[in-house]
């Protein structure tokens, strides 16, 4: 067991070791400096020429957002059509059916917004065609969208006074050709050599040693798994995601996949420092995020390796920890680390079933998604954190009696209003919809949807409530993991989570870009001794306090009804 815990520490340290140089590299890529991937130049030039793009054309915040929203809208229509008609398309060796319109609505949105909530099971709900042309495709482009938006934020922070946030198309293409694609190829090859399938062959039928006939699902999975980990997407090839022994064959692949979850989100924090040339700012942000991340990891590793007290009472030995929903080759500690990594970064892949986590760990992963800014999704994590910064700037301004400033720009009523609304929006969406779902379960259990509300919950009592709370929290955070016992493939969940997904993605990324667009347009005020420095550790503590206070005020009552109540009923 101690070896397993040491393993989790080493995995995290190794991630940091890789993330630092990667962050430096990412900053160079977007500054347009020379990097070893310059051999991609001709490819990118070709793309720009074909598409009619001038990559040096400057965009203000509105133009930037318009370009981003237009292409995202197009992808939504494209994805939904393909999913509905997938049974009429080629590359369907297993003969899987088309998705129902409500499921296609949910799936298309879910992958568009980098969430990857899956109300289908990979083996039977998609064809190889849609796995590649919808799922894998969207996993690349939605991650690249996030990174491109973040670079716009970087530009707004870097320049003294500017309207120019850079060129969306330029950043979007380079995110794929210089970051996501090369890293994905490396990870996919590692997976392939450890036993993850890559071929387009369909299901195999075998007779087992004991004489049973079994069908084994396969497919070109390795490439998709690589980008789902690296792009904080999280939607798995197989139904059980990276708990599946073909999706995550051994301890080594598990380490590689865990690193892949955290790598780009952490690297982007460092990239901020290098790009805007304020390394201290990046350090402070990294420190705040890491403090909470490490605390969450410690809690989950403690409770998962300790085992389920209700099983202790049955009188058996849990020397390997709480094993329900976990895989023996990965172990409880590695699954606990993954559970925090995947919810911190809005990845949402799992290597064990979160529904079976012990209550405190289950609560931590929900809380982690409520914060949704500890490293966060590729690009969007820092955008979320930026909202917390604006609120912290405002609060500190009130406390010291000065006009709040961020990086030499006055933060005024309009910016603070936007930030405050975004913070309240999450709480409203999560709690409002959870309340609606709970109402349906309690008062309309017999409605004739594909799954009746009375049959939604796989577990009774507090834990059943947690299943619903988790689903909307995950949707709003664009995370995509779930307490998967929930019977969610029916029109109620497909439509409501679809709505939460859309709002939960686009408003929280439009808002920071609007704020930085407005700020960067203002007159630059040079720093004076009276300036509250946002790149100081004092301000880091302030941001940490804001994160804790805002989250606690918004969500503690909801958490008390679910995981906390379950905790006190068991311990």
């Amino acid at each position: 067991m101690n070896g397993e815990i040491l393993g989790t520490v080493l995995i995290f340290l190794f991630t940091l070791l890789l993330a630092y140089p990667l962050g430096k590299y990412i900053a160079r890529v977007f500054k347009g400096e020379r990097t070893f991937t310059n051999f991609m130049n001709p490819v990118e030039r070709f793309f720009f020429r074909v598409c009619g793009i001038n990559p040096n054309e400057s965009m203000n915040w509105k133009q930037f957002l318009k370009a981003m929203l237009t292409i995202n809208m197009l992808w939504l229509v494209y994805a939904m059509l393909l999913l509905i008609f997938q049974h009429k398309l080629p590359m369907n060796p297993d003969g899987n059916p088309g998705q129902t319109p409500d499921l296609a609505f949910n799936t298309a949105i879910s992958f568009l917004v980098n969430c990857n909530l899956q109300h289908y099971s990979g083996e039977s709900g998609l064809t190889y065609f849609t796995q590649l042309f919808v799922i894998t495709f969207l996993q690349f482009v939605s991650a690249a969208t996030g990174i491109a938006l973040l670079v716009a934020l970087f530009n707004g922070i870097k320049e003294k006074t500017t309207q120019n946030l850079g060129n969306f198309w330029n950043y979007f293409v380079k995110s794929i050709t210089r970051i996501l694609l090369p890293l994905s190829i490396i990870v996919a090859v590692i997976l392939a050599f450890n036993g993850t399938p890559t071929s387009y062959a369909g299901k195999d039928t075998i007779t087992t040693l004991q004489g049973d006939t079994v069908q084994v699902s396969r497919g070109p999975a390795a490439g998709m798994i690589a980008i789902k980990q690296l792009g904080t997407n999280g939607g798995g090839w197989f139904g059980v995601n990276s708990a599946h022994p073909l999706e995550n064959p051994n301890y080594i692949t598990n380490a590689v996949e865990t690193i892949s979850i955290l790598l780009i989100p952490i690297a982007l924090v460092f990239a901020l420092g290098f790009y805007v040339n304020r390394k201290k700012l990046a350090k402070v942000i990294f420190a705040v995020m890491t403090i909470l991340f490490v605390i969450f990891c410690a809690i989950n590793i403690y409770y998962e390796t300790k085992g389920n007290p209700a099983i202790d009472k049955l009188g058996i030995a849990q020397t390997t920890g709480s094993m329900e929903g976990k895989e023996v080759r990965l172990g409880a500690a590695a699954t606990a680390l993954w559970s925090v990594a995947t919810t911190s970064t809005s990845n949402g892949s799992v290597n064990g079933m979160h529904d079976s986590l012990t209550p405190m760990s289950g609560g931590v992963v929900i809380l982690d998604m409520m914060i949704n800014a500890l490293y966060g999704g590729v690009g969007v994590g820092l955008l979320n954190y930026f909202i917390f910064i604006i609120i912290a700037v405002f609060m500190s301004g009130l406390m010291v009696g000065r006009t709040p400033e961020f990086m030499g720009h006055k933060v005024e009523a309009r910016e603070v209003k936007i930030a405050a609304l975004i913070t309240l929006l999450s709480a409203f969406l999560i709690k409002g919809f959870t309340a609606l779902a709970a109402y349906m379960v309690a008062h309309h259990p017999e409605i004739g949807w594909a799954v009746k509300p009375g049959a939604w919950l796989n577990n009774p009592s507090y834990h059943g409530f947690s299943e619903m709370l988790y689903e909307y929290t995950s949707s709003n955070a664009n995370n995509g993991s779930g307490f998967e016992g929930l019977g969610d493939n029916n029109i109620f969940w497909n439509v409501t989570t679809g709505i939460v997904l859309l709002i939960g993605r686009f408003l929280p990324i439009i808002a920071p870009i609007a704020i930085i667009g407005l700020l960067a347009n203002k007159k630059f005020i040079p720093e004076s001794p009276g300036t509250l420095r946002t790149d100081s550790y004092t301000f880091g503590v302030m941001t940490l306090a804001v994160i804790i206070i805002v989250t606690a005020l918004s969500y503690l009552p909801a958490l008390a009804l679910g995981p906390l109540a379950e905790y006190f009923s068991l311990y």
Partner: protein
Amino acid sequence: MKKNLLISLKMTLVMIILCAVLYPLLIAGIGKATPGGGKGKTVSVNEKVVGYENIGQKFTDDKYFQGRPSAVDYNAAGSAGSNKGPSNPDYLQIVKDRIDTFLVHNPGVKKEEIPADLVTASGSGLDPHITSASAYIQVKRVAAIRNLSEEKVKVLVDQQIEKMILGPSVVNVLKLNIALDNLK
């Protein structure tokens, strides 16, 4: 708007070709060089495929070492965990029943010796492994049914343990049972 839409259309096509066609083909090509040729590593007995190395299979017969409980009865075309919460009374009853069943089939084993992974369902429903403790505890039963000495079966288990420095030490149930069938 019109300009953006035109660019978006073209950009989408370009990225489909890059990310959904070329990239998976490249990985599939490299995959051909891997063990199993990218189709999954199979295990054969007398040149007949009896399973996939990484896909757990159902063993119900007492003469075989048994794997972990599976929420989907080892259906490798529909993986799933039980998704049972830790405080669910129905779930705890199921675990209790599994413990009782195990004790019936393994006389002489004390309850507190049963490793947790043998009575809890795996995450995938296809877990190919058990812990080394879960293999050792079945040695007595398997040896008795097969009329083998316990010592001999235990040595076999020793050989099948895949030791990991950081991760857990595990035993692949399918490989162990194939080796067991080969014991004279």
